[in-house]
């Protein structure tokens, strides 16, 4: 029955090999199996690692230098299937299918081999030059799972390397295997599916002209059976008759099994995976201890009462910890920096003095206002993530998220949003439907990020009182729920429910937690420091040059008439677009004092904080939104939020003036 199978001819993939000195290796596999950890070990780059599926939202790239060879390593987002449904899965699929890496390293979780092999089998259908790396061998051993690596290798027909990526075990062997695979690409064995399916694949292959758009014939035939739209389109251009033939075969298959053909094929792959697992895996009686640890924690973490209590404690703890520790570090840094050079709010002297003054003020503000708060936040978050608690939050809050047309996974970007809006917006990719993705990003821009929290604390908590600051926070959350529900009704598109893998808990690994905190902080410093310094220089220079008056006059209908604020706040809001906490800086620079209660009334302080909290997401956020959703959506969000900020600010001014 394999008579019609054209086995040769995948030379297209290697056509560009001649004499090139940089090779490409892609790391692929299910979500949360340790791709990022392997990537870090291979390249020495700190790729974000966390204990939740869908961590790598954009593919990361690094360089492996080994035995004199330079190899580009691409870390792809986790993917369960090649017929991918979410953006993160599409990134992987397109790279493997279209960019033709020299070697594909498929990382699989030793404890869940069956599920992981499902994807391996799809890579084998693609005839990728494959290496399988079985990761987390140590955890599997603790659960009493032993895997016959040699047998697995002979069944799949590709090299198989055991790994404990987190400890770096097996990395040298993997590197050797990669070098060997570049020299002679491994050709995966063909795994035969059920008879009814194979017969139909064969008869379709007979009517294909070999490769279609660079894909192997067997793969094309399978995709035709599954009626994959891209493949149907490609084949139709060359051999339209085969598309019709495939449709007939598909109908036959569906009438035998009574299921859609794609589902039948998934079933076949799982069946094949089961058989492989049966022959290579032995499960001993030892070690249920670990599993029961997860169960024990879950009994509390997912308890109807205790679970929510724990969740509230953790989120509350995250915020309290952030601001207690943040204030402490900030105080130390402020006194340290004051020794080096005092901040002079006066703007006099030569141009050089003015510029230096601006730059120094900006640097001090960045170092004392942002970094101290963001570092503890990311540290605590890394602990919650790496231990596995974050996914439990998703589970517990799924129902509540439904009210806003979202599902539990959206809690991940929303929590990230308390740190910085930009990475939080990017992480919305883990959500499947495009409607929900946009919805989540919109709500993320309303979450008080550390910058906005600083404004609320620095303006309202310090100079009005802490209760008003908390009330503003609460008001923001209520607003998020209301706007979420509203946007859910108004936005077109469908909402899909959550399906998410639940990782097991583990004690956080210090290198991972610290590495992740550093990595996130570093990327933030990259955005924050320059914009602070440049922004501050521009503000002081513009002030010295007398350019601020026209802006203030222009904006005074909004600032003075609608919001009841002094005209000088016009320019403050303009600078707030760069970074929200710049408003504090600008306020201090313009008024020449940091005691804001001396220049603004309590109502003005509250109105100022409301507007700052809600108007235009900062410039970095706008750029991130535009990158993800296009300029139209990014500008719509900007306009909506600015309008909202002015409307609510004006309303608050009038209401609060009545009794304050």
């Amino acid at each position, binding site marked *: 029955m394999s008579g019609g199978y054209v086995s040769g001819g995948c030379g297209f993939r290697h056509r560009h090999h001649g004499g090139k000195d940089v090779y490409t290796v892609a790391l692929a596999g299910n979500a949360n199996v340790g791709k990022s950890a392997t990537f870090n070990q291979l390249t020495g780059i700190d790729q974000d690692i966390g204990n939740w599926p869908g961590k790598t939202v954009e593919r990361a790239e690094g360089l492996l230098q080994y035995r004199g060879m330079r190899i580009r390593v691409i870390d792809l987002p986790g993917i369960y299937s090649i017929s991918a*449904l979410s953006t993160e899965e599409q990134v992987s699929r397109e790279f493997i299918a279209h960019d033709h890496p020299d070697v594909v390293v498929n990382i699989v979780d030793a404890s869940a081999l069956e599920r992981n092999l499902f994807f391996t089998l799809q890579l084998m259908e693609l005839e990728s030059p494959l290496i399988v790396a079985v990761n987390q061998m140590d955890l599997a051993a603790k659960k009493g799972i032993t895997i016959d690596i040699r047998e697995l290798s002979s069944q799949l027909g590709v090299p198989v390397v055991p790994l404990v990526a987190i400890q770096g075990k097996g990395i040298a062997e993997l590197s050797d295997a990669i070098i060997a695979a570049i020299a002679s690409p491994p050709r995966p064995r063909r795994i035969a599916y059920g008879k009814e399916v194979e017969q139909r694949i064969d008869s379709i292959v007979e009517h294909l002209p070999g490769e279609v758009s660079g894909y192997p014939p067997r793969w094309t035939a399978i995709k035709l059976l599954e009626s994959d739209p891209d493949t149907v389109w490609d084949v139709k251009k060359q051999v339209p008759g085969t598309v019709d033939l495939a449709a007939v075969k598909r109908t036959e298959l569906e009438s035998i099994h*009574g299921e859609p053909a*794609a589902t039948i094929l998934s079933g076949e792959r799982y069946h094949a995976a089961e058989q492989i697992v049966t022959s290579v895996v032995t499960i001993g009686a030892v070690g249920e201890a670990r599993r029961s640890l997860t169960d024990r924690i879950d009994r509390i973490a997912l*308890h109807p009462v205790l679970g929510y209590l724990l969740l509230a404690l953790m989120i509350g703890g995250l915020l309290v910890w952030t601001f207690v520790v943040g204030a402490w570090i900030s105080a130390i840094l402020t006194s340290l920096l004051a020794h080096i050079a005092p901040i002079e709010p006066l703007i006099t002297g030569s141009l050089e003095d003015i510029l230096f003054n601006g730059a120094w003020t900006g640097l001090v503000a960045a170092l004392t206002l942002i970094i101290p708060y963001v570092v503890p936040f990311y540290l605590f978050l890394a602990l919650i993530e790496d231990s596995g608690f974050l996914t439990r939050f998703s*589970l517990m809050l*799924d129902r509540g998220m439904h009210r806003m047309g979202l*599902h539990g996974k959206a809690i991940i970007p929303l929590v990230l949003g308390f740190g910085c809006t930009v990475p939080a917006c990017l992480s919305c990719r883990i959500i499947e439907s495009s409607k929900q993705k946009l919805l989540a990003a919109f709500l993320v821009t309303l979450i008080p990020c550390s910058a906005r929290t600083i404004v609320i604390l620095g303006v309202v908590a310090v100079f009005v009182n802490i209760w008003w600051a908390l009330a503003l926070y609460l008001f923001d959350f209520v607003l998020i729920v209301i706007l979420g529900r509203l946007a859910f009704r108004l936005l077109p598109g469908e909402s899909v429910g959550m399906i998410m*893998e639940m990782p097991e808990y583990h004690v956080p690994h210090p290198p991972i937690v610290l590495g992740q905190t550093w990595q996130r902080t570093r990327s933030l410093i990259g955005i924050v420091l320059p914009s602070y310094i440049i922004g501050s220089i521009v503000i002081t220079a513009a002030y010295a040059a007398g350019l601020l008056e026209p802006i203030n006059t222009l904006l005074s209908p909004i600032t003075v008439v609608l919001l009841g604020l002094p005209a000088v706040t016009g320019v403050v809001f303009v600078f707030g677009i760069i970074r929200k906490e710049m408003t504090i800086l600008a306020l201090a620079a313009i008024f020449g004092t940091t005691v804001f209660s001396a220049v603004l009334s309590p109502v003005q302080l509250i109105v100022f904080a409301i507007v700052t909290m809600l108007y235009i997401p900062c410039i970095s956020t706008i750029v991130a939104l535009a990158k993800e959703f296009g300029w139209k959506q990014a500008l719509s969000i900007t306009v909506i939020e600015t309008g909202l900020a002015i409307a609510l600010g004006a309303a608050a001014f009038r209401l609060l003036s009545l009794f304050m």
Partner: protein
Amino acid sequence: MASEQLEEYLETILDIEEQQGVAKTSAIAKCLKIAPASVTEALQVLSEKGFVKYEPYRGATLTDQGMEMARRVKRRHRLLEVFLTEILHIREENVHDEACRMEHTLSDETECALCKLLNAPSRCPHGSLIEACNRKVESCEECLNEAAPAATCTRDEPLIPVTTLEPGQKGTIAFIRGDNSVVQRLTDLGLTLKTEIRLVRKAPLQGPVEIAVRKTKLAIDHAIADHIFVTACGEKSG
């Protein structure tokens, strides 16, 4: 006891049992607007026939046999509600009573035709889940695609949505209802037909259910999990 009356009793007991765990005589009496004395009498008859487990002063719970019967009637009731609302546009307040009267006379054939006509609905107009049918099919497509009636033989074991399993209880996937993309998504994650799964826990407030399958755990939205039908294995552990 007339079969109509019997079915009505079982249905009521199922409703009360789902909310309160056990159906007290007084609660049944109130629901059916019958004197408690007649309810006690009827429960004794049902108990003799093996449909309920009846303990005086405590109340009644359905036996497996009773449960199967009650679920079948419930399915018909809810299908009829959809039919009355969507096709006949009967006024909302009358739909329930009307369906109550019609449900007892529906044949298997009519039930199947109704399900096909309504495009295999999953929920009644009030939002309650419609049980899976007991025909030997593996997906709704099989019924809907066929011009001629598909498999006419029925299953031996009752199908229940995975969300009604007790924590710790195992089941074998028999049928996944819904459009292709949902079925595909679940299949790709290893929830293929005939796979054994275990319900780990249900999150509070109708939240996602956690399912152990192929040595991994998946959290699945409650509404999606309602479409996964299993034959339960083993006794309920709770």
